[in-house]
């Protein structure tokens, strides 16, 4: 997580397709090497979904944490931790790319 900064902006990779079906957010790998096995798909929990929808290539991670803290009336520190945690997981799985990295 050390290379992930709150000022950074991310967008879903075009190597995955995110689908919302029956309120579930399902991430279907498109490119090889993301899903290691056939028949396997990814789902996000409620926290993950709330963050994913805001990874739009415009909001920085810090701004996402601000928006969510206001929306969910939750401690900013906790939300920031969730935003950084999910971002790390998604980056590890090649599901996100950074916009205009410095």
């Amino acid at each position, binding site marked *: 997580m050390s290379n992930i900064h709150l000022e950074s902006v991310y967008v879903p990779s075009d190597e995955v397709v*995110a689908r919302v079906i*029956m309120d579930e957010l399902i991430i279907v790998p*498109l490119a090889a090497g993301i*899903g290691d096995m056939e028949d396997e798909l*990814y789902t996000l929990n409620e926290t993950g979904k709330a963050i994913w929808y805001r990874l739009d290539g415009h909001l920085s991670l810090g701004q996402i944490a601000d928006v969510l803290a206001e929306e969910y009336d939750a401690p900013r520190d906790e939300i920031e931790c969730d935003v950084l945690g*999910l971002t790390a997981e998604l980056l590890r799985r090649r599901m996100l790319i950074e916009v205009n990295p410095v």
Partner: protein
Amino acid sequence: MTYITLRNRYNQPLFTKGAPVLQYLDIELTERCNNACKHCFINLPIHDQNALAKELNTADWQDILRQAADLGALSVKFTGGEPLLRDDFAELYLYARRLGMTVKLFTNARLITNGLAEMFSRIPPLEKIEITVYGMHPETYDVAACAPGGYVEFRRGVERLLEEGIPFIVKGALLPDNMDDREEFEEWAKTIPWMENRPSYVMFFYQRGRPCNLALRQKIDHARINPEKGVALISSRPDYRDEMKQFCQQFTHPSGAQLFNCGAGIGGGIDAYGFYQPCLMLRDPNLTTNLKTTSLREAVLNTRPNLLKMTASRPDFLERCAHCFLRGLCESCPAASYAEHGCLDQPVEYLCQVAHAKARDIGLLDEKEKAWEVQDWKERLENLNTKESL
């Protein structure tokens, strides 16, 4: 905290708030095939002009795939005929994958090119490709498939998938022409890295589901294996009988007059000409919907409730099938009945004989018994493992 979970959709339910309107879609891209197997009910010649003129075009299929994705379908099967005969196969495959659907491909592998294998490597289907095998030598394959040079092309296609590491499984079509290749086929299947189980076989063939000439129907009749012999072949596998007994205890019981006890309509199939069918086998025009005039949503929503209300009216079905406790074991169904007789509720004698042979093989019936006359079927099922069922 775990924000993201990897789920095997076949073992772990993906949805907690009910299932989507359309759970899967089977697409028959063409009825044309580069094989002309004697047993097959769907293998028009490659250049059949009538079929070519009627087949949906690329944009039509893309529209249907888009509708299917909007209805929640996560998986699409491309089958045929031979789906790789379509010039736009790669385009449709990529379109489906980019919609976030996984793709199951049913093929004979003869048309797997380096380009296709490379595409599957780059954008994997996320489901194992299923390859039907018609023999292990040119002398058997080419005769069974009526396709000179077919065997060489099939092996080349398989090699291309192996080289690229594309997961696939093989299944056999057992015909009089290739029966002697079975052991060799099973040994070869063991060498395929993605074969978790022994290969399955098609051998109790369906008749043609569309009107066609008598000679073709007779070909299928002749390709049908004797039921006792067919059951003897599959029951020689280790664990077959135990698995079959467990299956029967779980799924076989009389189902009364209700016609559809299956998953028809939960997903659905679309034939090469754009007609939605509750399952790909069911060709009854009264149960199909033309997607050129009706949306896929309407077709799906209108079909399943109607199927569940349908009951049999033919006396032979009501006397036999309605009371038969082998119903779960029997491959006869409205689709098979329609293919054989042109109606939904007439017993298919051949499949009835197969079900009885299977039941005799595991000790559920004796030689002369008819399953629909058996009164103590519950006790027989309960006692299956104790060998006291008769």
